[in-house]
Structures are given as structure tokens and as C-alpha cells.
């Protein structure tokens, strides 16, 4: 398997000479990172190039890196869109990560014209992470409620949300109101330093 991955990395390096921000091989998976400007062209080449042939787009997801490792991020490294591509012909996978330059209003080109399966997945990434996809034919919310405000998978969105819904006896209908429950955390999230728990670690 690893010889195959090496071949894939080699082809990627040759085809995208200079356009790759990084290429990493980790745990048997290849990840490449490109800039938002090159994204659409790189995606097109990945699909059409005879030696790559990623004819299937498995997954698109938005990631909010703002609290990653509990450390501060430099600007332009908050919202990433991660694509998982699969080539049936060559039987290999690739992960493509693109950061949106603007943290307050992340925008990225849409890949709907390349892979029709991107349509709903980009809608989902827009809905949950708030990344806009320019050129998307129908960028509506998909999973959250009609009239929902906010993007739940952003790290600054509380788990309990902002509004709750209940049946109001007097009004005789469902009403929205600010949440009344306090979010609580049973197990705190901890990032331990390297080597914690190993024998001899002080």
C-alpha cells in the first residue's frame, strides 16, 4: 500500500508543482493543502488528469480550527474545507484541505460543476460551519430548522444553542424562546503535554 501512496505523492508533486502548500503522508493517507485561489483548478485536474482520476467526491466537510490544540491561530487559518476524494480506477484516496482567507466571512469556490454530489454537502458545510461557496446553484440551509440563526459546528456556538421551542398553552402554538438550560461539562477537555503518563515522565 505504501508504495502506491508514494507513487500518488510523486504524481501530485509533479502535477501541482509549486501550487501545493503542503503534502503530508500520515497513517497511510495522503493530505494536500492548496490555496483558495488554486482550489477549483486543482480540483478539476484531480478529477480529469489521467494518472489521478478522482472521479468520486466522497465527502466535503467544514472544519473550524479556532480552538485547535487550545492555541491561538494566525489569521486566515480558521475555516477549512476538507474534501475526501476517491479514485475507483486507481483505488486510492486523497484528502484536500483548503483554508478560506477571511475568518469573518469565509468564502470558497464551489465544486458542484465538477462533482454533482458536492451540492448537498456544500449546503451542509454552509449550514453548520458558515462557509460560503460561490457558484453554488442553491446554497440554502439543509439540516437546521427553517429560520435558524447561527452555524452550530463553529466552536463559539454553545452545545445547547441559543433558542428552544415549546408548546405554549395560551397562544395554542409552538413558540421559540431563549434557552433555559445551563450548559454543563462533566468531563473537561484536556490536552496533555507530550509523553504524559509514560514511565519516567515527571
Amino acid at each position, binding site marked *: 500500500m505504501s508504495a502506491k501512496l508514494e507513487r500518488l505523492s510523486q504524481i501530485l508533486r509533479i502535477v501541482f508543482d509549486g501550487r501545493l502548500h503542503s503534502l503530508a503522508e500520515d497513517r497511510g493517507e495522503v493530505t494536500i493543502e492548496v490555496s483558495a485561489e488554486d482550489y477549483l483548478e486543482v480540483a478539476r485536474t484531480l478529477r480529469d488528469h489521467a494518472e489521478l482520476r478522482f472521479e*468520486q467526491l466522497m465527502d466535503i466537510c467544514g472544519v473550524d480550527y479556532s480552538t485547535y490544540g487550545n492555541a491561538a491561530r494566525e489569521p486566515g487559518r480558521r475555516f477549512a474545507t476538507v474534501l475526501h476524494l476517491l479514485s475507483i480506477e486507481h483505488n486510492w484516496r486523497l484528502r484536500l484541505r483548503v483554508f478560506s482567507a477571511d475568518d469573518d466571512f469565509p468564502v470558497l469556490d464551489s465544486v458542484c460543476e465538477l462533482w454533482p454530489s458536492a451540492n448537498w454537502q456544500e449546503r451542509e458545510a454552509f449550514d453548520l460551519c458558515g462557509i460560503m461557496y460561490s457558484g453554488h446553484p442553491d446554497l440554502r440551509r439543509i439540516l437546521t430548522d427553517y429560520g435558524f440563526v447561527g452555524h452550530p459546528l463553529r466552536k463559539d456556538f454553545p452545545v445547547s444553542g441559543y433558542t428552544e421551542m415549546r408548546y405554549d398553552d395560551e397562544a395554542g402554538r409552538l413558540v421559540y424562546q431563549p434557552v433555559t438550560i445551563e450548559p454543563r461539562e462533566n468531563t473537561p477537555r484536556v490536552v*496533555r503535554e507530550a509523553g504524559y503518563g509514560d514511565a519516567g515522565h515527571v
Partner: protein
Amino acid sequence: MSEIRNYTLNFGPQHPAAHGVLRLVLELDGEVVERADPHIGMLHRGTEKLMETRTWLQAVPFLDRLDYMAMMCSEHAYCLAVEKLLGIEVPERAQYIRVMFDEITRVMSHLMLIGSHAFDIGAMTMILYTFREREALFDVYEAVSGARMHPAYYRPGGVYRDLPDSMPKYKPSRFKSEKQLKEINAAREGSLLDYIEDFFERFPKCCDDYETLLTENRIWKQRTVGIGVMSPERALAMGFTGPMLRGSGIAWDLRRKQPYAVYDRLDFDIPVGKNGDCYDRYLCRMEEMRQSTRIIRQCIDWLRKNPGPVIADDHKVTPPKRERVRGDMEGLIHHFKLFSEGFHVPEGEVYAAIEHPKGEFGVYAISDGANKPYRIRLRSAGFIHLAAMDELARGHMIADVVALMGTLDVVFGDVDR
């Protein structure tokens, strides 16, 4: 002359053929569907967000609640992802147990699908037969994990416990005579493996029965042949996987092409369709159940011969034995740490995909070294397949939409997450 306009029909969110909660806005020209716009999210529970707030181990039960027709398969993908991040080895016996239960789950999922698909189209009897067999498999789940529906049986590092040596039996009551009791307990005298073997001994016969009801049934064929045809090229572009892709004639199965667990050591065939319509996909699934039976038989043989541990021995990740917790200081510390803070997963990201009964189920996990996932992304096949609803339904009659819903094999826990 009066103005002619298209009729817009709201299908769902509560509809017996919607397989859960789907609101489908259909634009009709007479009886022909011009445009189908599925509105999903009625069952959105924010699983991905919730998993970020739980430790890696606490996240396992969420996976059961995704596709509640195929519970253990989703767990498998998640465990594979965590194991890949941690870099731990799963004992061979645990891998065989997982494969066996994956296939049992596949049979359960397909039974549900074929039963309800036929039921939606009007073949009432099918669902009664398939549920009879599903019931027996639920008993297998219950015997092994204590839960019929949401087992949380797979754990990072292996499975929760070994297969039990005895099956729970029906108890005498005033509703059952001695003779009846003996009859229903007949298969339950031995171990769980005996019970599973007995079931899969008679299961091919059940498949034959289903096929006599459906395969050559004229009404069934009229309702499914040539409905929802997907060309192989289009199926690839739409991101189809699993039986939806194989129905279009592409022999792509992760169990073969990118084998995980012990699938590379097992002998089975991949059924492939020809025309890419509802009928071919039905035939594929029917054959897949027979192939699953083959796999399960091989697993039973292996499991009988090879006793051994079923969970990794690394107590930084897996809980130590109860005796060690009681009698050994180190065991106590491991147990306490594991169930309070949880284990830490090294920084990194992985994508683990398995061949779920419905297609490719992938878990993309990002860890920043904490005791909780930084981000979990669940790639479910149902979501992608439902996105093709518009394309499949265009130009078909409204009654065919129901057939399409069935063939897409969507489960809303999976679609809405």
C-alpha cells in the same frame, strides 16, 4: 381559457412511505414529477457537535443512533478511525467477531429494506416475513450486548466482551404450553454461535421464499423495472456507493477493494447489477444477503476453533479486567482514569471507511491530542443518495417516488445525523 399551472405537493414529513421524517416538495405536471426537493433535517440531533463534547469512548453509543437499521456497522467505522489514530492492534478474534456482526447487521438492514420497499409498493406480506427473521437477529444482538437496538458493542481496541456460552431462553408462562416452549427454545440450547449457525442454516431457505414472492412477481417487476435508472458514469459523479453503485454495474466494494478487519481472508462474491434500476438494486441486495450468509459461516468456523482475547491489552485505551481493578493498584488507576478523563488520542487526522449496508460509511476524525475529538465528520451514504432524489424522480410518476424512496434505502437517523 383558464390558467394552467403545476401542482405542488407536500409529501411528508409524516408519511408511511417516507421511511422516517422526510418532507418532499414535489412539483407535478399532472401525475408526472417535474422537480423533487427533499427537505431534510427533521431528525437532526447534532451528533457531530455532541461527539465533540464527549470523550472518545463516550462517543461510541452515538454511532448506533445514526443508522438505526444497521447499528454495529457505524460503530465499526468509528472504532477503526480511533484505532488508526491510536495505532493499536485489534486481536484477531475481535476482528472476526466484528466481521460476523457486520454481516449480521447487513442482513438485518437488507431485510428491513426489502420488507419495507415491498410494503411501500403494496406487497404487504413481505414485511411480515422479513421482520420475523430480523427478530431472531435482534436476539443475537441482545445476547451479546444486552441491548436489542443500540448495542455499543464495539469499542476502540476490540469488542466489549466475548460471545456468551449460552442463549437466554423463553421462560414458562401460562400462555405457552410445555410443547410450544420446547419448540421455541430448541435453537437456544447451545451457545450463541450455535444459535447463529442454526439461523443461517435456515436463512437461505427464507431468501428463497422472499424471492418466490417478489423476484418473478409481475406487479413487483412492473413497479421496479426501469424505474430510477442511473448510468454508471452518473452514479459515480453523484457519489453513489454500495448497492446503489453496484446496481449500476460497477463492481466496487470496500470489503474487497480496500479490505479492513479480516475481509481479505474470507471468501465471498460481489453481486453486480446491469441496468441500474430499482429491480437490479433489489437483486443485488438479495444476493448480498446470501453472500453475507457465506461470510458468517466462515466466521463461525474460525471462531469455534480459535479462542483468545477479544480486546487489546493496552490498558491506556481499554479497561482492565474487573479482578485487576479490585485487586491491583495499577488496574484501579487505569480504570479510574479511563472512565473519568478518558484516553488521549495522539494529534492527527484519519478517514476510516467501511462498506455499510447502504454504501460507504466514513468517519473523518481530527484529534488535537485531547481526551475528546476535535472534530468528527460522519459521511453517511443515505445523505448522498437522497441528494440524487431530484434527478431520479424527474419524469417519473408520483407513485414511483415511493418506489425510489425504498430503493435509495434511506434511514433518517443517518441522513440527518
